[in-house]
């Protein structure tokens, strides 16, 4: 450390400090931009058919959604980017494992109710389609053939 102080000038040290600070700011900016560009949905499948697409974004307040399966109605609750199944009718779901599993929040997690063939999964969707973050931030210049 002492050697570094001896071999560098004040200008060098200011430059190193500037590079470190700008790197840290860039990292935060990239993380923030990528988080904002992703929308999260819970897909509800009953008997293999998608019946609902529920937004589960982090800024969402607690909300409940009803869906029909067979002759019964199930209720899903979302809160702070998470989703869970509320206890269902005991006759249709005797074990109640789908509600016991609690909140899920990651795209690799799922809620499954075997007797009623209900599957709830979380999927991430890009807000701006197939474009990556760098391409989205580019100014689009129309191609002129002439």
């Amino acid at each position: 450390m002492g050697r570094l102080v001896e071999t560098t000038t004040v200008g060098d040290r200011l430059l190193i400090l500037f590079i470190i600070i700008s790197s840290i700011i860039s990292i935060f900016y990239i993380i923030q931009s990528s988080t904002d560009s992703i929308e999260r949905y819970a897909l509800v499948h009953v008997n293999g058919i998608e019946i609902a697409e529920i937004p589960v974004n982090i800024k969402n307040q607690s909300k409940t959604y009803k869906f029909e399966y067979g002759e019964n109605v199930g209720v899903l609750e979302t809160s702070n980017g998470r989703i869970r199944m509320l206890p269902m009718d005991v006759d249709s779901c005797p074990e109640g494992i789908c509600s016991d599993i609690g909140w899920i929040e990651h795209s690799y997690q799922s809620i499954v109710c075997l007797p009623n063939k209900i599957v709830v999964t979380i999927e991430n969707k890009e807000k701006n389609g197939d474009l990556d973050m760098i391409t989205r931030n580019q100014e689009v210049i129309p191609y002129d053939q002439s």
Partner: protein
Amino acid sequence: MIKVEVCSNCKTRVCDLNRGIDIYEEFRQYEELFWEQEIEFNLSECECLGVCNGPVVKINGKIYTEVDADKVEFILNELMK
């Protein structure tokens, strides 16, 4: 008595619970057949069995992994012997 428990409590997708639904339905088809033969058949879902190589099924206390339709028939035939 035949007691079948199909794992349905997997917070990850390792066990492929979509196939688990098919397996559950497969067992359900045999339910009536067994009752007709006056063999008590109990089908239910269960919590994670800790094997995580699904679909995972526990039949009369024995755990079977990577169960498919052919395996269901084979297992039940073995139990009937």
